[in-house]
């Protein structure tokens, strides 16, 4: 990292390529948030890599003036894992949509999370397939009417945060495309976390699923519908913080604070080793039509994969000495003719 790079601006992080998302797409605000945040991290552009799969979100790397790979559908976490293991010195971001990450690439996502590879995974969830023009996605609600489900979809949707917590993720957060500051905060937290980080970004697809998150993310609704998770603070929301969350027999339940008293509220602990409460919080809302937690659900320290791998290499070299090819070829019995 050089002095020059610590004083970059948003412009330095943008490429000269024309951004080709539909006008009004939520992806624009996510890109802006990212380009505004990057200069604040003090990481240099050449040490930063954005890797994506396929989908609207996956065009993201073309707009970031860093190294980047626009890979194939669903596999971005696997490409990122390989790069991270080979080059633990890099700052690696993975960008994908709900179809990319939870459908075709679901396997790679869960394995990257359980291995705890140091990559920051941004999952742009618009609950629809955009680039293929409007089929239901693995996060679409049951009964969703789309071109491929004219009688309503039958599939139970995934809850991305629940999936991530179930996959042993050490860092899980949720944010939305209408709140740039909150996005930046979540992205920064993901970057700071040593290990795999998953940030679900609720993102509006104004062409195929417009307003999917209006119930919770419109400015007028936010106070009553967004539950901000803050580490060490009782979980409260509402214009006057009049509502809160308590644990009831393993379930997280929304209550009126006046009914239970402040002391009964769950004090949010993102570092709790047991993921049960974080998971319960992820189940509070069945979809973005009910009061929904945002913020960091879970941030625990756990051994990071790539550095553990490097440590194995170092210890092997310490024990066996640096590789000696001539000796390797003679490591089985030999004879002379």
């Amino acid at each position, binding site marked *: 990292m050089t002095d020059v790079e610590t004083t970059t601006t948003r412009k330095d992080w943008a490429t000269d390529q024309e951004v080709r998302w539909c006008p009004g797409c939520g992806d624009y605000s996510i890109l802006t948030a990212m380009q505004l945040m990057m200069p604040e991290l003090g990481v240099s552009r050449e040490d930063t890599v954005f890797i994506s799969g396929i989908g609207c979100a996956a065009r993201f790397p073309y707009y970031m003036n860093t190294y980047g790979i626009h890979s194939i559908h669903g596999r971005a976490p*696997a490409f990122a894992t390989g790069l991270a293991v080979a080059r633990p010195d890099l700052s690696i971001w993975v960008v994908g949509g709900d179809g990319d990450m939870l459908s075709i690439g679901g396997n*790679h996502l869960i394995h990257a999370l359980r291995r705890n590879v140091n990559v920051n995974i941004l999952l742009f969830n618009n609950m629809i397939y955009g680039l293929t023009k409007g089929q239901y996605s693995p996060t679409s609600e049951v009964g969703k009417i789309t071109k491929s489900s004219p009688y309503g979809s039958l599939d139970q949707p995934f809850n991305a945060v629940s999936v991530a917590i179930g996959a042993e993720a050490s860092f899980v957060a949720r944010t939305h495309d209408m709140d740039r500051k909150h996005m930046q905060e979540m992205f920064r937290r993901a970057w700071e976390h040593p290990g795999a980080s998953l940030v679900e970004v609720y993102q509006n697809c104004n062409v195929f699923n417009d307003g999917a998150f209006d119930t919770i993310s419109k400015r007028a609704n936010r106070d009553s519908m967004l539950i901000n998770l803050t580490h060490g603070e009782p979980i409260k929301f509402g214009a006057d913080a009049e509502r809160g969350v308590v644990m009831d027999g393993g379930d997280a339940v929304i209550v009126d604070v006046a009914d239970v008293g402040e002391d009964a509220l769950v004090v949010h602990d993102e570092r709790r080793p047991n993921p049960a409460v974080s998971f319960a919080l992820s189940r509070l809302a069945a979809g973005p039509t009910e009061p929904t937690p945002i913020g960091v659900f879970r941030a625990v320290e756990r051994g990071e994969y790539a550095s553990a791998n490097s440590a194995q290499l170092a210890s092997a070299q310490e024990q066996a000495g640096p590789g000696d090819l001539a000796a390797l070829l003679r490591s089985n019995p030999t004879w002379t003719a």
Partner: protein
Amino acid sequence: MTDLADAPNARDVDRVVIRFAGDSGDGMQLTGDRFTSASALFGNDLATLPEFPAEIRAPAGTLAGVSAFQVQISSEPISTPGDEPTVLVAMNPAALMSDLNRLAAGGTIIANDDAFEERNLEKAGYVDNPFEDGSLDGYTLIRVPMTRLTREVCEPLGVKPRDAERSKNFFALGLVSWMYTRPTEPTLEWIAQKFAGRDAVIAANTAAFKAGHAYGETAELGSHVVSIAPASLPPGEYTNINGNTALSWGLIAASVQAGLPLFLGSYPITPASDILHELAKHKNFGVRTFQAEDEIAAVSAAIGAAYGGHLAITTTSGPGVALKGEAIGLAVSMELPLVIVDIQRGGPSTGLPTKTEASDLLMAMYGRHGESPMPVVAAHSPAQCFDAAIEACRIALEYKTPVMLLSDGYLANSSEPWLLPDVDSLPAIDVSYATEPNQTNEDGEPVFWPFARDEKLVRPWAVPGTPGLMHRVGGLEKSDGPGNVSYDPANHGRMTDIRAERIDRIADDLPDVVVEGSPGAKVCLVGWGSTWGAIRGAMRRLTADGLDVAHIHIQHLHPFPNGLGEALRSFDRVIVPELNKGQLVKLLRAEFLVDAQGVNKVMGQPFTAAELESIVRQTLSEMEG
């Protein structure tokens, strides 16, 4: 115990082919492997053919559970595990039932007499006892109560009878070692090393081995003792090596030669897993092995590592290559170095996982969507897997392209003596990263174009961490030069042409075609991959008989070596033996308009030299007739 390696009364023979066959639990692979090692250290030339079922332990005593290991040892240079065994060691009735038809007429059967009891005979499908019904009359039968004798010799050691029985393969090994005058020290040393810390096991195996060795003498089997003199191999230091180990070491050598760290992304699959196992042991060479969640993740991780500047490898077999196809297409588009190792096995689908076949050639050539050419290199003998691996890596790194390296189940598991190369004489691999911008923009500022090319049409490899060279690559078509996303029709046509041209041009840097045997011959055998050994064997016999035959073995299957077409056209008959239904022959006919004829075997087994010899003789007599 006397070491009978120089037994004065032993009958000298040039070669012997021994087949050890028994139940999967009988330790036949280990027995064969030990016999091979002792023979290698003794100085014979040899070639092995391990054959085992896909099931880890099929029901004991059944035909499905038979595991066999064939080895040819010789005082002359050889290149195959032999046409037919002259000795069959049958540890149970199922082994005899399944493998007797392979035994040469008049061959010797060494049977574990104790296993030939009613239940086992029934399980193997025998109605009558073959020892009594005259069906073995044409063979020399040596019945040895191996189980009982092993138990007896282990009893004073305090080994339980059931545990003792597990050492009976060492009894067999001892007996066969005596009959073939093998040195005993390597085996005894190996037992001590392998089972270090398990004194009871060492004692039982050693006792069983010595008992087997002594049995030959006391049972007056002296007339069967055979000695095979050391082969006059080119002077130098040798080791016995199988294809997967040689290939693994070749990958490490390439990493050393290129000065780049090695990254392997792999998912376990038969018969390729041993490469993952071998490389995982050598982290002190800076080797990173990543056992991925699936085949697609394995190749994707490798491509990620290649983007990061590593020598990236993915190893698999046919089903894995099918899964990796889309990602390999991406590597073609991104023009990154990558080696895909395909240890071919019987297909389609799961097919015959533990048996050999060479039926992935057309998949290697064309098994991707779109126009996505890539070099294809094939290994042709177990030890040569080392050179083939270096060559595949060299092409990948120097030309910034994915390369398919083909081996097969036979090469993977078979072994032969390998004259160790001088590591200082290994080919250099010339590779460097881009460090500077390579263009100037309209404002006169230096910029980096990822798809600007050198005179060989190779693009620069700029790795993350390099200031000023930030760029984005990916599957969308890129503009020729600047490398931005481009939907321009003319650009797509140009980039498609360049991707083909840059691979074709590699042939100019490769050795021209090599014709072995008689250049003026009327018949030419054209092979690729593991048929090399059988073709060599056939060639030796034919030329010894004064017949004119030529042999072309194609290591570079794409691009073909220069001069191949002219060479093929110079022969009256071109015969292409393949362990598939005729894949190379299609390519040759399409590329060169020659009337090449295929000879095909798809039985999970390699060709024998005898099979190819007979084909050539038949062809020659047809031509004369």
